[in-house]
């Protein structure tokens, strides 16, 4: 701060700015395309086949969206604005468990890639963990999974059982 007067000017201008009547919303829905690590690569999606995915939300509402082969189940939620509270907090970097999904047994058994230790470590902390649970950010859809249905588990207030 160069001088007291510039400090006082800064104060006055900011207070004035903050008092102004609030205008329209700007910057609608700007989503920062974060660098995604640890995921399968999203190749040239434009040429890929469309895969239909059904998400059963915690309140049992079913949301059906279209995805491209190769996209992971977290990206699909974000791209289609599926409304799930707090989904994908760490943006697919294997640092949380908020993209937790439950699969049907036979689908789970046939998923192309087994979970790594790192995915299992994060799944350990997920609410409502089941034997057919995976992290959405680690599962990429293939055309064989067209029509896939996954359940988004309910989060409860105290799930730490470690």
């Amino acid at each position, binding site marked *: 701060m160069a001088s007291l007067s510039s400090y006082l000017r800064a104060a006055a201008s900011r*207070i004035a700015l903050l008092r102004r009547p609030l205008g329209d919303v700007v910057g609608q829905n700007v989503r920062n395309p974060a660098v995604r690590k640890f995921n399968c690569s999203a190749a040239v999606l434009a040429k890929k086949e469309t895969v239909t995915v059904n998400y059963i939300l915690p309140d049992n509402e079913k949301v059906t969206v279209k995805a491209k082969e190769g996209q992971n189940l977290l990206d699909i939620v974000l791209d289609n604005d599926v409304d799930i509270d707090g989904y994908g907090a760490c943006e697919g970097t294997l*640092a949380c468990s908020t993209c937790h999904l439950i699969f049907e047994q036979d689908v789970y058994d046939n998923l192309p890639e087994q979970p790594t230790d790192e995915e299992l470590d994060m799944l350990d902390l997920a609410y409502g963990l089941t034997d057919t649970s995976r992290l959405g950010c680690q599962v990429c859809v293939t055309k064989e999974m067209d029509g896939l249905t996954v359940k988004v588990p309910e989060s409860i207030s105290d799930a730490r059982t470690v």
Partner: protein
Amino acid sequence: MASTACARCRNLLTRRLFKSEMLMMPTAVHTKLPMISRLLSTVTAIPHVCIVGSGPAGFYTAQQILKSHKQARVDMVEKLPVPFGLVRFGVAPDHPEVKSYGAEDDRVLGIGGESLHGVYSARSFVGWYNGLPEDRRLNPDLSSDTAVVIGHGNVALDVARILLTPVDILQKTDITQHAIEALKESRVKTVYVVGRRGPLQVAFTIKELREMTKLPGCKSVFDTKDFEGLSELVPTLPRPRKRLTELMIKTADGQTASQQTQGQESPNKEWRLKFLRSPIEIVPSEDGKRVAGIRLEVNELKESEGRVQALPTGEEEILQCGLILRSIGYKSLPIDDSVPFDAKNGVIPNTAGRVSHLKGFYCSGWVRRGPTGVILSTMTDGFETGKSVVQDIESGELDIKSTVDKGRDKLLDIIEKKGLVPVTFDDWKRIDDLEKTRGESIGKPREKFLTVAEMLEAAFD
């Protein structure tokens, strides 16, 4: 901090920024602020909500309110000129993708020698390497070859990991430059991580443990005796505890990757996990000026009323060391006399986030639940409190039609009268850009400003 709030929060901020504001002030406003203010309107009564604190709990609560109530206006008030709380200051610099957070104070051991030179709280150590202004002068003494970390939580592992990670790896993170310089000169080669109970009671989680076992140039040394009989018990444990215990047993048996160093240079550092040890005295050096060791009593475990307790056996041992980091828990501090506070547990008494006996006041985060859990718990907690607020607005439990207070305007009146300069979110973006530019020239995601004065200069120039 390489990443800011989660994608949803960033979306929300951008979408609703001109309907709500974030005010950051270099000094706290010590006054009784109504948490919900009222705006006179003949058409719709718009609820004003003021959230004190801009850490993850504040953001998740704000998100829930803005999402569930289309007219609500939310102002977030933060005492520092920078937002995001311990997402900025608490996350280890080599974990930019992890979210973590804390409370303002920490617990002490309450033993002799605790104020000797060389003894620090893990919380201040974390603040020091993460650029929290109040911890910038910590100057931890890293000249001894042995450090002891007291505690078996993730913060204990964080500080051990920062002490043991090769500096050239840390150099690429947003760890403060003064910490890098100090760590370059560090002579610490052995770190003990000591806890009073056993392997089944550790509070750290598997991701952090796994990382310790994979530290380049560092050996993990566990005593197999600590794990005797556990293998039989493991299949009965719930999955998270089971996998965590299995990893510890595997490490003790010397089977993890870093231990089977295939063609790697032999490690020159090590960390040792010790169980059933409680500190009873910090031993001074001969000249009495600094720490020379720590006296520990040996415990045994006893189960009583569903809790496993550590009880002393009478046996003792001494570990020689020149650095002790106390990582036994955080504590919240009361915000103001007008807000009820449970000093014993360090929380604000509440039900579903509604502060007991104080209508219109809510709490979320560690001040509500106590300082434990991961970001998921804080998120759920923030959502729950947000839901309580919206419920109370919609049910009429909160009177928002009264003409008495005007929310943000009244807050700005107070700020103006006190001659304070509010720092806006746009000002933070200037600080953010400058930190990133400073970092770029030395190969780091950012170089944080260490003082409030520098932050303000960056914001206002």
